[in-house]
Structures are given as structure tokens and as C-alpha cells.
């Protein structure tokens, strides 16, 4: 028994355990997501995070010793963000054809997303770190977390905000478009990708390929636009 205990203590100090647990949790979450038929409320990222958080709390493992192993997964976020250029390049023709409408409506939508979220939490008494962490919440997680980290926010908090935004956006996008008479598929996709990144886009893709394509390009472009604008907003608002 004490041998087992020593093995546990040893493993807790090693990166192997955190890394393995992350990959297993991800596979379990993906499997569950598939079982629900990729329902809008089901999100493998959220499920994996909850699973791992429960394991950490139940086993009394600190986040620091978990992250000792999980950092190797996190490291790949950098190259993956750079790799987003490849699907964006595939959409270059579409972007060029509608350059002005895309740029104007996305800049407006992106600014509204960040500024309204920042002003509301600030008005309701949230501290500066929360105001910064919520600013990039409409952006796809890797870029949002990068922005949050660089500006003095809490990347973990940002990840949760991004997720909630995506789930909410995926649920209300289509009813809202119907209500407001937004019937143009290109406008639908662009709005979904800008306001609620990949989760809304995945939902819209089920309705229309055009909406999916515009959602995809909005995800990448909004990452860029937000990364450029949010530092300015923070300077003006905080």
C-alpha cells in the first residue's frame, strides 16, 4: 500500500499524469459529444474541462502539478493559431470579393461585442482582471486566451467566457435571424462567426454551406480585428 502511495506521489510530480489525463478526458468528452449527435448544448471542451476539474478536486491535485504535464498540449496552441492562416487563405477569394462589407460589419460587430461586455461587467462591479478577461470573449479560444494573457487578464476565465458565449450564440442565432429578417446566408454566417466563433458557426453550417464558409472566415478575421482593437478599448475604458 505504501508502495502504491509512493508511486502516486512520484507520478504527481511528473508531467506524464497530467498529459495522459488530458488526452483521456478529451477522448471521453468527444465520445460523449458523438453520442448526443453533436447537440448545440454539448461541447467536448466544456465536458473535458469539467471532467478534469472534478478529478483534480476529488484527488486533491493542485492545478500547478496538473499543468506541469498539460502544458505540452497547451504549447501547441501557438502553432495551431498560426495554422489558421491555411483555412483563411482558402477563403481569400470570398474576402476579396466582399472586402468592404465584411470589414465594416465585422469591425462594428466585434467592437460592440467587446465594449458592451466590458461596460456591463464594469458597471456591475467586476474587478479589472474580469473586465479584461471578458473583452475577447467572442473570439475563438486560442486567440482569445492569447489576448487575455497579454493584456493582464486570466486566460482560464476567458476560456470559460468564450465557451458560454459560443453555446449561447449557437442557441439563439437562428431564432434571432428569423425575428429580425436577416435572411442573407452570408450575413448570417458572418454574424455567427463574429459574435460566437466556432460554436455558432457549427450550428449554422447545418443550415447552409455558405453560412458555414462565412462563419469560418469571420472566426479568423475576428481574432485579428479583436487583437488589434481590444488593447485600445482597455486604454480608453479602464
Amino acid at each position, binding site marked *: 500500500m505504501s508502495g502504491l502511495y509512493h508511486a502516486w506521489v512520484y507520478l504527481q510530480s511528473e508531467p506524464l499524469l*497530467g498529459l495522459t489525463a*488530458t488526452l483521456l*478526458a*478529451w477522448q471521453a468528452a468527444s465520445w460523449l459529444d458523438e453520442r448526443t449527435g453533436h447537440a448545440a448544448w454539448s461541447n467536448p*471542451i*466544456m465536458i*473535458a*474541462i469539467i471532467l478534469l476539474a472534478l478529478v*483534480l478536486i476529488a484527488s486533491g491535485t493542485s492545478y500547478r502539478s496538473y*499543468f506541469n504535464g498539460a502544458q505540452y*498540449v497547451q504549447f*501547441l496552441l*501557438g*502553432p*495551431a*493559431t*498560426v*495554422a489558421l*492562416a*491555411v483555412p*483563411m*487563405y482558402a477563403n481569400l477569394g470570398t474576402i476579396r470579393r*466582399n472586402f468592404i462589407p465584411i470589414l465594416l*460589419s*465585422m469591425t*462594428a*460587430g466585434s467592437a*460592440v461585442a467587446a465594449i*458592451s*461586455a466590458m461596460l*456591463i*461587467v464594469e458597471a*456591475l462591479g*467586476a474587478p479589472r482582471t474580469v473586465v479584461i478577461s471578458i473583452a475577447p*470573449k467572442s473570439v475563438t479560444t*486560442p*486567440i482569445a*486566451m*492569447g489576448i487575455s494573457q*497579454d493584456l493582464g487578464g*486570466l*486566460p*482560464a*476565465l476567458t476560456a470559460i467566457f468564450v465557451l*458560454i*458565449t459560443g453555446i*449561447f*450564440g449557437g442557441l*439563439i442565432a437562428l431564432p*434571432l*435571424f428569423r425575428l*429580425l429578417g436577416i435572411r*442573407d446566408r*452570408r*450575413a448570417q454566417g*458572418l*454574424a*455567427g462567426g463574429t459574435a*460566437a466563433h466556432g460554436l455558432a458557426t457549427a450550428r449554422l453550417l447545418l443550415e447552409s454551406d455558405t453560412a458555414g464558409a462565412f462563419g469560418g472566415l469571420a472566426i479568423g478575421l475576428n481574432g485579428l480585428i479583436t*487583437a488589434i482593437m481590444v488593447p485600445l478599448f482597455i486604454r480608453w475604458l479602464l
Partner: protein
Amino acid sequence: MVQALSLLLICQLLGTVIARASGVPIPGPVFGLILLMILLMVRRGPDPGLSTTAQALLRHLGLLFVPAGVGIVNELDVLRTNALALAVALPISTLLALVVTGLGMQFLLRGER
């Protein structure tokens, strides 16, 4: 694969150098994305190796931000203290962004098909 991964890391490295040296608060990988974009425009598209590697990385993009998300175990107090502010801000800001972008784009594309 190795060549493509090296290219991605070189872009990220140069991007990080640009971000640090210029003092512009944009994440290094975002500069790296722009650099790769320029390279792809010059080369008129990715080679098959880069396409495959990018696809492989992006297919499991979700997995890559699980570790940071688990950091929530350290932030539960922050969530609890600011629950009301967040419950108001997240839905409203998302709704506003959907409306502004959607109506704006539809208006700017009007009459064209």
C-alpha cells in the same frame, strides 16, 4: 510534416519577436498567422505537407485549450463573486454582436446577389 511544423514554429517565433520588439500588445502567434498568410499569398497556396499538418492541428483544436480551461479550479471564487455581472454581460453582448454584424452585412450587401 516536420518541415511544415518548422515553418509554423518559425512564423510563431518571428511573430513573437515582432510583438515583443514593437511593444504592440497583439499575441505573437497572431503576427505569425499574418506572416504565414503573406507567405501563402506570395507562394499562391500551401504545399500538401502544410495543408495536412494544419488540418491535423486544427481538427483537435478543442483539445489544445482544455489545459487552460481546467485553470478554472483556481478561479471559482471570481466566477461566484461576479456571477450576476457575467450572467448579464455574456448573453447581452453576444446578442448585440449578432444583431449589429448580421444587419450591417445584410444592409451592405443589399441589391447584390
